[in-house]
C-alpha cells in the first residue's frame, strides 16, 4: 500500500494504544490547522443544531444567505406538532447592509416574521459577518421582544469565535434565559429533564416513554420535539439527565448552580448504556422503590425480545472490525460497547470535539492496537481504515462516500440517520443497519479496500 503521511502538527491528535509504550495525552480542544481538510464545522453550526429542534419558535439567521440555506431542514429532528423549525429564515445580508449595518433589516424581518407565524419565541443567530460589522443584536432583540411580547433571544454564534463546542455553549446560554420564566406548579417530585436528546427519527419519544413507564415525569426535552413553554418550566424538574457530552453539559452545570438541580450523564445507545440510563435515574429516587422496580421491568421486557433478535446479526458480524468517527466523543463510548455486543471490534475511534477526559476514557476502553484520533481528515481516515482493515465506518454525511469508495459498509450516526438508533429498539435498528451494510451483496462486485477486480 502507498504510504500516506500524517499532516505535520497532527501527530499529537493521534494515538495508537500499544502495550508497554508510554501513554501520552491526546491533544484536543484545539482549533484545526489552517489548510487541513477538516471534517469539523463552526460555532454557528453548533448553536444551530442544538436549538434547531425547538419547533414552535422561529429561527432567524442574521447574515448572508448561505448560513440559512445550508442549515435548512437538514436534521431529521421530528416534531409532534408545530414545524416552524423546518422553515428557513434569513436576513440575506447584502453589500450595503455590510457597509451600513443590518440592524434595521433584522428588526423589520423579525416584525414581519412574528406577525406571519405567531411563534412562541424567536432565536436570532449571529453569523461571522455580524460579529465584524458590529450590529447590536441585543438591542434589536430587546426592542422586538418588547413590541411583540414574546422572548426574542440573541444567539452569539459568530462562526469564527471558537469551535462547534462554543456554539453549543452559546445555544445553552440562550436557553438559560428562557429557563426559569415559566410556572413550576404541579410538577412532580419524581421528575427529570432530558438534555442533549434531539429527537432524530423520533428517538426522544422512545426515551420519554421508558421514563414515563417508570413513573417519572419528563418536564422538558432539550431540545428534541422542543416547546418554548416546556423550556420555560425546566427549572421545576428534580434531576437533569444529560446525553451527548459536548452539547448540553454546560447547561446542566448552569442549572445546577442557579437552581440546584443535579445532573447525571447517560447514553441511550446500546443495551448496556440504555439500561444504565434508566437505573441511574431510578437510583436517584430511592424513597420510591417502585421506580426501580419499574425500570427493571422495562429493561427485562425490552431485552427479552431484543436479545434473541440480535443473535442473527452477531453470528454474521463476529470478527468484523469497525472504525468510528463521530461528532461527540461520548457517543463513541456507547458505540464501542454496542458494537462489541454484536461481535464487532473497534480499530479506529475518533471524534470532532472530544475533550481530555473523553480521550482518557476512550484510551481505557479501547483494545490494544486501536487508533484514537481527534479532529481527523479524509486522508487519515482512509489510511487507518485500510491499515486496520475495517469493515465498517460509522460517521456523518462527509464520511459516507469515503467508506463506500473504499468498499466498506457505513452507518450514519449523525444527522442523517433515518431510523431511531437510541433505546432498545434503536439497538435492533443499529444492528440491522450495520448488518445490511457490512454484509451487502454489493461488496461482491466492488473492489474492496484498495484491491482490484
Amino acid at each position, binding site marked *: 500500500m502507498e504510504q500516506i503521511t500524517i499532516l505535520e502538527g497532527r501527530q499529537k491528535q493521534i494515538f495508537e494504544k500499544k502495550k508497554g509504550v508510554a501513554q501520552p495525552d491526546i491533544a484536543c480542544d484545539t482549533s484545526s490547522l489552517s489548510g487541513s481538510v477538516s471534517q469539523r464545522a*463552526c460555532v454557528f453550526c453548533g448553536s444551530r443544531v442544538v436549538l434547531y429542534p425547538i419547533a414552535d419558535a422561529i429561527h432567524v439567521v442574521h447574515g448572508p444567505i448561505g448560513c440559512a440555506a445550508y442549515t435548512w431542514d437538514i436534521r431529521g429532528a421530528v416534531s409532534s406538532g408545530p414545524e416552524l423549525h423546518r422553515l428557513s429564515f434569513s436576513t440575506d445580508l447584502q453589500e450595503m447592509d455590510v457597509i451600513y449595518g443590518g440592524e434595521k433589516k433584522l428588526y*423589520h424581518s423579525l416584525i414581519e416574521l412574528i406577525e406571519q*407565524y405567531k411563534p412562541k419565541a424567536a432565536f436570532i443567530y449571529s453569523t461571522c459577518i455580524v460579529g465584524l460589522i458590529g450590529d447590536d443584536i441585543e438591542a434589536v432583540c430587546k426592542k422586538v421582544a418588547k413590541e411583540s411580547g414574546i422572548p426574542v433571544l440573541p444567539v452569539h454564534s459568530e462562526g469564527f469565535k471558537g469551535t462547534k463546542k462554543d456554539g453549543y455553549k452559546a445555544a445553552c446560554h440562550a436557553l438559560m434565559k428562557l429557563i426559569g420564566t415559566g410556572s413550576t406548579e404541579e410538577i412532580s417530585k419524581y421528575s427529570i429533564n432530558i438534555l442533549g436528546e434531539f429527537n432524530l427519527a423520533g428517538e426522544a419519544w422512545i426515551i420519554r416513554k421508558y421514563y414515563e413507564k417508570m413513573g417519572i415525569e419528563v418536564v422538558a426535552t432539550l431540545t428534541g420535539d422542543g416547546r418554548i413553554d416546556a423550556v420555560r418550566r425546566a427549572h421545576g424538574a428534580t434531576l437533569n439527565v444529560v446525553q451527548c457530552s459536548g452539547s448540553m453539559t454546560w447547561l446542566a452545570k448552569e442549572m445546577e448552580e442557579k437552581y440546584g438541580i443535579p445532573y447525571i450523564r447517560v447514553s441511550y445507545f446500546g443495551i448496556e448504556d440504555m439500561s444504565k440510563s434508566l437505573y441511574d435515574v431510578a437510583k436517584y429516587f430511592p424513597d420510591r422503590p417502585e421506580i426501580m422496580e419499574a425500570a427493571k421491568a422495562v429493561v427485562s421486557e425490552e431485552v427479552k425480545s431484543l436479545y434473541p433478535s440480535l443473535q442473527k446479526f452477531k453470528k454474521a458480524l463476529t470478527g468484523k472490525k469497525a472504525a468510528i468517527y463521530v461528532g461527540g466523543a461520548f457517543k463513541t463510548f456507547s458505540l464501542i460497547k454496542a458494537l462489541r455486543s454484536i461481535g464487532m471490534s473497534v480499530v479506529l475511534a475518533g471524534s470532532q470535539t472530544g475533550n481530555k477526559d473523553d480521550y482518557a476514557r476512550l484510551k481505557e476502553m479501547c483494545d490494544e492496537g486501536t487508533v484514537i484520533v481527534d479532529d481527523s481528515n479524509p486522508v487519515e481516515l482512509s489510511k487507518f481504515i485500510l491499515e486496520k482493515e475495517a469493515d465498517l465506518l460509522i460517521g456523518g454525511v462527509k464520511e459516507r462516500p469515503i467508506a463506500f469508495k473504499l468498499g466498506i459498509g457505513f452507518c450514519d450516526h449523525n444527522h442523517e440517520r433515518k431510523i431511531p438508533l437510541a433505546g432498545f429498539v434503536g439497538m435492533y435498528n443499529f444492528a440491522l443497519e450495520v448488518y445490511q451494510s457490512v454484509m451487502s451483496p454489493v461488496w461482491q462486485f466492488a473492489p474492496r479496500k484498495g484491491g482490484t477486480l
Partner: protein
Amino acid sequence: MLLRHTSKEVKEREGLTINPAKTCQPIGAMYAALGIHGCLPHSHGSQGCCSYHRSTLTRHYKEPVMAATSSFTEGASVFGGQANLLAAIETIFSVYEPDIIAVHSTCLSETIGDDLQQITRKAKDDGKIPEGKHVIFASTPSFIGSHVTGYANMVTGIATQFAVSSGVKKHQFNIIAGWMEPSDMREIKRLSKELGVKIVLFPDTSDVLDAPQTGKHVFYPKGGTTREELISAGDSLSSLALGSISAEPAAIALEKSCKVPFETLDIPIGLSATDRFIMALSQVAGVKVPDEITAERGRLVDVMADMEQYLYGKRVALFGDPDQLLPLTEFLLDLNMKPVHIVSGTPGQRFEKQMRQLLDARSPETNFRNGLQADMFLLHQWMKNEPVDLLIGNTYGKYMARDEDVPFIRFGFPILDRIGHSYFPSVGYSGGLRLVEKLLNALMDRQDRDALEEKFELVM
C-alpha cells in the same frame, strides 16, 4: 402540513427571506474548482463554510468532496487572514499534494479586507508555491449575488490565471461550461466529438463527481480540465460561453487577456437551445452536422410530436438558477406548455431582461421575479393564487409539491433526495428526450392516480 403557515396574500417584505431559492457564492466557486484536474479547492474563511459546502455537494453527488479551509479564528478576524492562508498553502502542498490550489474568499475574509491577489503573490514570493504548482483565486463575497455568481467568479479566475496567448493559434475551441452537472459536461464533450471539433471544456466535473467505485479513496479523481488544456485555452480560435450569467464573464475575461473572441449561448437544454449550440459549434469550426446528431434531433422531435396532446397547456411553476431557467422555460414553451410562475433567488438585471424578453414574446402573463425576496415562500404564495399542474425545481420544492399536491420534477441544485442528475444529462437532444420523459411520467402518473375508474386508460 409543513408549509401550513404560507398565506395566500402576497405582501412586500422589507428584509426577510423565507425559504431561499439560492445560496451563497463560495459553494459555486468550490464546485467550479472541482472541475480542474488535480485541484484542491480552498475556502478562506471559518471552518463551517467549508464544511457546509462539502456536505451539500456530497449530498447532491453522493461522492467524497475534498476541500481545505483556512480555519479562521478570532485572531485571524482581527489581524487579517494572511497568516492563515500562507500557512494553509504550505500545509496543503506538503500534505495533500495537489497541482493546483483554488482559493475562494468568504463573507468573513472579504469583510476584514483580505486581498487574495496580494496574499497569493506573497506566497509565491516567499517560495511557498513549489515549482510547477499553482495557486489561483477568486473573490466570492457571500453578500453579493448567489452561488451562481461564485461559480462565474471562479471560472473567470481559472480562465484568466491559466490561459496564456503564445502567439500561435491552435485549431481548437473553448467551451466554457455554465453551471451544469458532470453528466452534462460529458454530453457536451460527446457532441463535440461527434461533430469532430476539438474543444477545451472548462470546468469539467465529469469523472470527478461521478467517479466509479474503485476500492480506493483518491483526493484527485481522474477527471477535470488539465492545466495544459487550460493554458492552451489562450490559443484557441474562439470561445463558446454556455450561459450568460455563469459562463460569459470568463469568456469576456479571456477575450481581454488573450484576445480569444467569444459567443454566448444558452446552456443547450431543450430543442431550440441545443439547435443553437450545434449550429454555433459547427459554424465556428466549419464542420457539417453529422447524420447521427441529426437523427438524435429527429428522435426528440418525434417524441414531442407523439406526445403533444399530453403536454399542451399544462401549467408549470419553476424555480432555480438563471442559466438553466432560460432554456428550460423556452423548452416548455416549445412543448406547448405554460410556464405560470418563475422564481430565481439570483439577482441581476441581465437575467431579468433576458427572461422578460422571452416571456414578453411568448407568454407575457407569466409571473416572474428574481433577486431579493424572490424565494420559495413567494413562489408558494403565487401557486396558491394561481395553481399549477407541475412544479420543477431543486429538492426544496418537495415541501410545496406536497402541500399543494402537485407533481414535482427535480431539476437544478441541490438535489438531495434523488440520484440521476450526475449520470444522465439534461443537455443536448438526448437530454431533451430525458426531460420530456420526466415531464410525461410526472403528468401521466398523476393522471392515472386521479382518473375515475371508467376513465382509467390503458393506452396513453
